[in-house]
């Protein structure tokens, strides 16, 4: 169901966590709240869930005003950053919890839990305790537990933050596919722009308790509204007031047509990507991103002097 947040503010003591924030999330969308730590993204998620109350503003879920409604009656599924497993219960009982407290018939609970454990690929681990699971398995258990009560919306707080790189990659992919399958409106919080770009259909960039920009990953990348979004959503070179993406710096075999000279300081091979660190004639340092193939073609070497063409730089009104 659609989620709307209107003019929400929240203070913790003297710290302003959220300052007049409004967002709208369409029914069935997969949205990322992206920002550095302290940007207010987790607070916003917790306010939507009813785990915090806003000082001002309203939240609606599926058109119903839920401000003041306790978390237990909001019909949200929440996955905590550290999974918040019930440590004294088996995986089976963890997933069944929401149905058990609703006093559903035993047969129904069993069938539903079985189905969910298959969905999150934990069938066979039903009798284990959380202490016997890996991080990725705990994460999937937490997700199954949240989905068991058929929530109207699914909220995930830094869902992949505590996992190692490989598992994180697999789970992202899997969450994406799961969302295609069950189509529940989903918001997840992350500080990792790559994760947001890869998984989300819509990204809300937050900073200092405010929303900097909201849009599709492509919109944010191609037309960032300000320097914060530009530098948070991808790598940048800063040239005075102007910003240039490293992949927009062209390295050419010969000078000509508004090129300038640059000295190659260092070449970093990152597989497909090659990072070329350059010093411009005026002493400014930039780096360019080229593919492995073009680096080979240009026969790049450290200490070499090259011709580069800078793109029209982007300048934001301050």
């Amino acid at each position: 169901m659609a989620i709307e947040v209107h003019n929400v503010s929240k203070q913790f003591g003297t710290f302003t966590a959220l300052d007049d924030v409004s967002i709208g999330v369409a029914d069935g969308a997969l949205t990322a709240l992206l920002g550095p730590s302290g940007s207010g993204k987790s607070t916003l998620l917790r306010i939507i869930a009813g785990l915090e109350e806003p000082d001002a503003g309203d939240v609606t879920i599926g058109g119903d005003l839920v401000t003041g409604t306790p978390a237990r009656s909001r019909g949200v599924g929440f996955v905590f950053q550290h999974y918040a497993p019930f440590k004294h219960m088996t995986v089976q009982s963890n997933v069944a919890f929401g149905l058990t407290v609703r006093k559903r018939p035993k047969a129904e609970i069993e069938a539903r839990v079985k189905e969910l454990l298959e969905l999150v690929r934990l069938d066979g681990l039903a009798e284990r305790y959380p202490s016997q699971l890996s991080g990725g398995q705990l994460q999937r258990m937490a997700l199954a537990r949240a989905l068991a009560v058929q929530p109207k919306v699914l909220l995930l707080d830094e869902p992949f933050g505590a996992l190692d790189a490989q598992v994180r990659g697999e789970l992202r992919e899997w969450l994406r596919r799961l969302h295609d399958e069950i189509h529940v409106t989903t918001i997840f919080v992350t500080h990792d722009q790559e994760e947001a770009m890869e998984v989300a259909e819509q990204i809300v960039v937050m900073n200092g308790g405010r929303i900097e920009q909201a849009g599709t990953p492509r919109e944010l990348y191609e037309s960032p509204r300000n320097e914060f979004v530009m530098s948070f959503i991808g790598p940048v070179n800063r040239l005075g007031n102007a910003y240039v993406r490293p992949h927009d710096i062209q390295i050419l075999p010969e000078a000509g047509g508004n090129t300038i000279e640059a000295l190659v300081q260092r070449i970093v091979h990152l597989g497909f990507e090659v990072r070329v660190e350059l010093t411009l004639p005026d002493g400014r340092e930039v780096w360019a991103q080229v593919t492995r193939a073009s680096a080979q073609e240009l026969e790049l070497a450290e200490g070499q002097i090259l011709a580069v063409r800078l793109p029209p730089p982007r300048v934001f009104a301050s």
Partner: protein
Amino acid sequence: MSSSGPSAISLSPAPAGGLLPSQREREARGTSDGAARARKLGVRVVALAYLAVLLIAPVGMIFYRTFEHGLAPVWSAVSAPNAQNAFWLSLEIVAIAVPLNTVFGIGMALLLERGRFRGKAALGMLIDLPFAISPVVVGLALVLVYGKTGWFGDWLAQNGIQVIFSVPGMVLATAVVSLPFVARETIPVLRELGSDAEQAAATLGASGWQTFWRVTLPGIRWGVVYGVVLTTARALGEFGAVSIVSGRIEGQTQTLPLYVQDRFENFDITGAYAAAVVLALLALATLLAMNLLTRRTRGQVAS
């Protein structure tokens, strides 16, 4: 983005002498190993000696003296009507005071750990007060409030309720002196448990009550059990406060510790020792029960 030049990493060769420790180094280590072993042994001897002087010898002596002349005199001492009465009275007081303090202690721990309100620090100090105040003072204070001339004295007398010199007063005194244990043992466990699991239960639709019984209590049960054991031990052994509010009426308001004191003062050494042994065995049984309980339940949740 700024580029940094290649950082100089110096690979210094291994110091002369190579990987094998020299003879002198080995000797030095040998003596320091010996010294460490001697130190460790010394600490153990001191610790054991301390325990022996303070605990093992006196308690051992009581057991020895009690059973010195066989079981028959012990049996007749503990089956004396006043001894029996003291035994059951002690159990009765524990059976009332411990559950009261358990409920209060858990509630207090939740309030202090999960609540957000003014004066929390002051409240935290207040529940520690029974640790700081001498039990005799607690007893006197209770007499002042609930005694015949006390604040509620008239009202209580009119309604036919006797607190001082009877069981209610003794339960009160016991409850006061053993008040902080459950809360103090539960608070750190509650803090470590965190509130994530409770919040998860809430988002899954559990009421506050369901969350408490299904998530919070199972999470803190070891802290609570330990608190209950300490409370029970303290309640069983309480002397000062109970001594004042009970009036020490033989066969009526004598708990086991009071009975031991009474027998001792009346030169009934066998009676005193026998009752003391019963008291010690009760405490031991409590500890044992906790041990068995934790071991069995932990076995089920073994990781």
